[in-house]
């Protein structure tokens, strides 16, 4: 440790210097990583491409923006067969990103958990347990509740809360799609 006592001015100068070097290093890293992130985003394509790839509306051959923020129209050839949307909803631990597909009557055709940060080994089963999201297909807005609450979705045992958040999230996204379409 330094023996000399630094004056207040020297302390300020040293702190500023170190902070400045740190800022330069971080700016450089930021530049490089942002480039890479932009490449990743480009490779993934816009929401329309991602919805198509995830197959939330199984028969769709292309998705086209419906003009709103979230909702994309799903086409099979030139026929409008449903809608798809990808949005962030509240989870138990953090935000969950869901992709939801519906037919023209707003009956669910597919749900995909795009990203989540629920409890590893418990809540994250909403993504890992494929049987869970598969239940949503064919269910209309009335049935979109956990079976404990009289709906048609069976929560994952041990992860009822996360299951509930996903179900509520799907309802929320469908509501937004309906608003944007009408």
């Amino acid at each position, binding site marked *: *440790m*330094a023996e000399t006592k*630094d004056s207040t001015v*020297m*302390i300020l100068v*040293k*702190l500023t210097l*170190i*902070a400045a070097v*740190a800022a330069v*290093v*971080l700016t450089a*890293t*930021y530049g*490089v*990583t*942002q480039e*890479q*992130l932009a490449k*990743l985003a480009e490779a993934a394509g816009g929401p329309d491409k991602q919805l198509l790839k995830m197959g939330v509306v199984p028969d769709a051959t292309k998705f086209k923006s419906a003009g709103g923020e979230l909702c994309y129209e799903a086409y099979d050839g030139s026929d409008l067969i449903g809608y798809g949307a990808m949005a962030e909803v509240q989870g138990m631990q*953090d935000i969950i990103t869901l992709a939801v597909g519906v037919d023209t009557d707003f009956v669910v055709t597919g749900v995909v958990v795009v*990203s989540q*940060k629920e*409890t*590893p*080994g*418990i809540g994250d089963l909403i993504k890992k347990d494929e049987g869970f999201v598969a239940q949503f297909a064919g269910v209309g807005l009335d049935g979109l509740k956990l079976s404990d609450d009289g709906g048609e979705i069976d929560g994952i045992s*041990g992860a009822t809360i996360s299951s509930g958040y996903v179900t509520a999230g799907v309802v929320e996204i469908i509501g937004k799609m309906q608003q944007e379409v009408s």
Partner: protein
Amino acid sequence: MAKKSFVGEIIRGIIKDNPVFVLVLGLCPVLAVSTSFANALGMAMAFTFVMLGSNIFVSLLRKQIPPGVRIPIFILIICTFVTMIDMILEAFLPPMYEALGIFVPLIVVNCIVIGRAEAFANRNPVLPSIADGIGISIGFAAALMLLGTIREILGTGALKLMMLWSKDGELGFYPLSDIPGFSFVPNPIEFSIEPATVMVTPPGAFLTIAALMLLFKIMSDRKRMKQLKKEGYEI
């Protein structure tokens, strides 16, 4: 401080000063990310980057750091490395970034890193500080991966051994079986036990750490007993 060999410093960090089992530092990330082998590996790598960077720079600047503001400067140096590794993970290893989540930024306040800056790097030249950083990182990594392996096996009944590898030009974590020369390793390795979910939750981490610490303690006590007997004490 007595002169010690480079290798000696490394080994001290792994065994005598093992950050998790002996110093009992940094338990928060240990509990949170040791749910599986792959997570533990990712966390250990991020930690090593920060630990080495912090030790090297604190040691280089040790004569320039005003004692009164040394902690803010340590934090500043550590922050810089943590932010770098956070951004790098996000850009180049997105799945790992998602899995580790908040625990990468939280390395900033990891008491192991600050502890080594204060107790070692600030008082020693660069080379021993690098050795200390390597030793502590290996000790931390070993503890994390041991916990991760045990918890994954007991909690899920299977073990997925992952390695950082570049496949088809894409850097990422791949199962060991995908790596040339290791194709004989099954993925996942199945164990015929009933998975106990508690093992992948924080209480499971405490149970595992307790069991391992007990083992560590028994082993070091045995060694001490032998030493004492040699010296002629009646036990």
